[in-house]
């Protein structure tokens, strides 16, 4: 067993950390969130310059052939800085679907995605039920041109601004889940944009007989590919969550040692001290499970159950850490001005997406 990052991975992590330290302090981030822009185009280009948007694709597909451990190596920084750029959504989820497809259309988009020229959205979630792919209801009706999509997708990150959507839909004749590419502005799309509680650009999208030409049908039987793409996204998203947890642990410990009440730092009160200890216990579990699961996945040995354990633990532990951080800060922890609540909202949002911890932990229980 080897759980250490390589030297190259450490270097990558440092590059991303430096980039974000330079461009992404909390105040800058808050201005960005309050602005009309969905995210920072500058930061996104810098990601591309660093090769991040190219990293996960294989060399044959024009990428860098990065491993899951490479991605995990830097993703923690995305969480530490509360980054709102759609890296997981565009590069890993939509990009992963393209890579699994490998059609000429897919390769063309991978090229543009890798260069940072475009962003894509992954239209997957449909509501509480679709934590499980079994419940996907979006219909792909076979047609002469290729297929017609009808239904609704929720929490489509970057859905209103992406250049194209990769849609997960169920063939109405075969019942098989597939990947379908829909370019922005296609007829029949009705997009209702919003900002998420953690500052990201998202949308609810209605599909009303949206025509997909045959060349834009990326994969007709995508069940296995979907699971692989989700697994990778879950691991990287968990690293992002771990970054937020670590930030909360550090910030809260420091606050507890400086904030005084009743004549002493509040961290001297045993109940506060033990809450900090519980935060560290939770963080240690999260770190251990992320690290181990990453190594497993890197060896090609992570099962669906391993992924469910990771997603479940990160979601549950993230909630615990966030709530403990707020309680320890008291009133100031509940203000929009302090970063603490924003970390917590990021953790909540990550938990809720791609199946919350209650869903995944129950899956673990079903399978064991």
């Amino acid at each position, binding site marked *: 067993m080897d759980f250490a990052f390589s030297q190259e991975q450490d270097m990558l992590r440092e590059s991303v950390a430096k980039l974000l330290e330079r461009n992404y302090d909390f105040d800058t981030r808050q201005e960005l969130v309050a602005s009309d822009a969905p995210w920072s185009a500058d930061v996104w280009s810098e990601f591309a310059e660093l090769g991040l948007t190219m990293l996960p694709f294989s060399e044959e597909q024009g990428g860098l052939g990065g491993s899951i451990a490479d991605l995990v190596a830097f993703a923690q920084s995305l969480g530490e800085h509360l980054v709102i750029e759609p890296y997981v959504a565009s590069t890993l989820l939509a990009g992963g679907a393209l890579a699994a497809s490998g059609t000429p259309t897919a390769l063309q988009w991978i090229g543009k995605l890798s260069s940072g020229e475009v962003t894509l959205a992954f239209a997957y979630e449909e*509501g509480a039920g679709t934590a499980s792919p079994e419940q996907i209801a979006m219909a792909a009706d076979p047609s002469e041109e290729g297929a017609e999509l009808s239904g609704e997708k929720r929490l489509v990150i970057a859905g209103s601004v992406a250049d194209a959507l990769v849609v997960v839909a169920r063939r109405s004749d075969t019942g098989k889940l597939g990947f379908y590419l829909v370019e922005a502005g296609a007829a029949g799309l009705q997009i209702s944009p919003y900002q998420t*509680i953690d500052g990201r650009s998202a949308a609810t999208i209605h599909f009303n007989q949206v025509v997909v030409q045959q060349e834009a049908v990326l994969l007709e039987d995508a069940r296995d590919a979907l699971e692989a793409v989700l697994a990778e996204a879950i691991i990287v998203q968990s690293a992002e969550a771990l970054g937020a947890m670590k930030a909360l642990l550090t910030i809260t410990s420091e606050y507890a040692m400086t904030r005084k009440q009743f004549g002493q730092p509040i961290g001297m*009160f045993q109940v506060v001290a033990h809450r900090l200890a519980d935060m560290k216990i939770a963080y240690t579990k999260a770190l251990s499970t992320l690290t181990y699961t990453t190594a497993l996945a890197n060896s090609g040995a992570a099962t669906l159950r391993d992924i469910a354990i990771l997603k479940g633990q990160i979601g549950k532990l993230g909630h615990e850490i966030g709530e403990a951080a707020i309680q320890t800060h008291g009133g100031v922890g*509940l203000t929009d001005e302090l970063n603490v609540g924003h970390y917590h909202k990021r953790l909540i949002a990550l938990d809720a997406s791609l199946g919350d911890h209650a869903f995944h932990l129950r899956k673990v229980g079903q399978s064991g």
Partner: protein
Amino acid sequence: MNVEFSPELEAFRAEVAEFFATAPTPAIREAGRKTTSVFAPFDQCMEWHQILAKKGWAAPHWPVDYGGTGWSVEQRFIFAEEYRKADLPPLLPQSLGMVGPLLIDLGTEEQKATYLPPILQGLDFWAQGYSEPGSGSDLASLQCRAEADGDDYIINGSKIWTTYAHHANRMFMLVRTDNSGKKQQGITFLLLDRIDYPGMEIRPIVGLDGFPEQCEVFFDNVRVPQSGRVGEENDGWSVAKHLLKHERGGSAASPTLVRYLERAKEAAGKTPSPFGGMMADDPVFQRDFGELYADVASLAHMEKLAISGHSIANDPAFPSLNKTINSELIQRASILMTQVSGVTGLARQLEALRVGSNVEPQGSEFDLITMPLYLNSRATSIYAGSNEVQRDLISRSLATG
């Protein structure tokens, strides 16, 4: 031992339900449904207060002489239950529940005559100026200073977590008038008959839910009349503690919690479970729901015992027990609600939440409120004496027997 279920009570329930079905305006109803905090949207809340006051129902818990209803325990609970069933906005507690009862007990005749009627009628709203940036849980360490000058006090310092101060026209507050003794000594309780004194500045604080519910209030040589003092100078701590008496046996918080749970179950009946079927039929949802519902029932039982004079309410720790249990149940209920909303609750929808905005929410009206309610309810274990302080107090009641 008995619990009454008489035809008279059922008739009373019908009368209350009928009034709630007809009296509120559409905006008031909308405000009720969009309430995501202990503190309902201000304008509609005060409008509703005025309507209730005309009916004579604004302050059921006040003495009849001052405008209370004189209802029985059963009636008070029925009123609270129907109120919540109708999803009406709760009246704000600062004036009716705090400074009002305090003045009834400790105010001068002039203070009572001046301040009580407009409180009852819903014409005045009083902000509560207790906490300060440096004194949160340790309230007695407050430093906002008032120096006597002729018939006035001159106030310097600041207050924080002053809920709805930006909506208030009056304010009650604790100030430091003496630094020489123990920190609990040297505190004075003051009424400010206006909130726009020269030198006062109010800064709203945006919360995690995106709303400016709390405020910071700055005092720069603010000159206010000493006639606003309640009790003696330097005796404000015992005046403030007197308020606690009113937390004993008066609360009926459980109907709100029951209503949250009902709404969650209703929504769960329309929300698909990832395991197939609807969430409401999912055994795991039912277990989580049942566990929470039973705990809410225990709070309801406790409130009914207290309101009917059971000795449980004589325990010095009762207000702390009540506050701790209630606040943690709100938090748990709000978590269950966000679980039902799932990803749909992740949209930040400040405009759709505004009463009268006519903006379609993402998902249902239920999905609109769950996340703001969850985020806002993180405060319940912090404000009004953090739950850490409450547990300290509860444990002390055990130490002394």
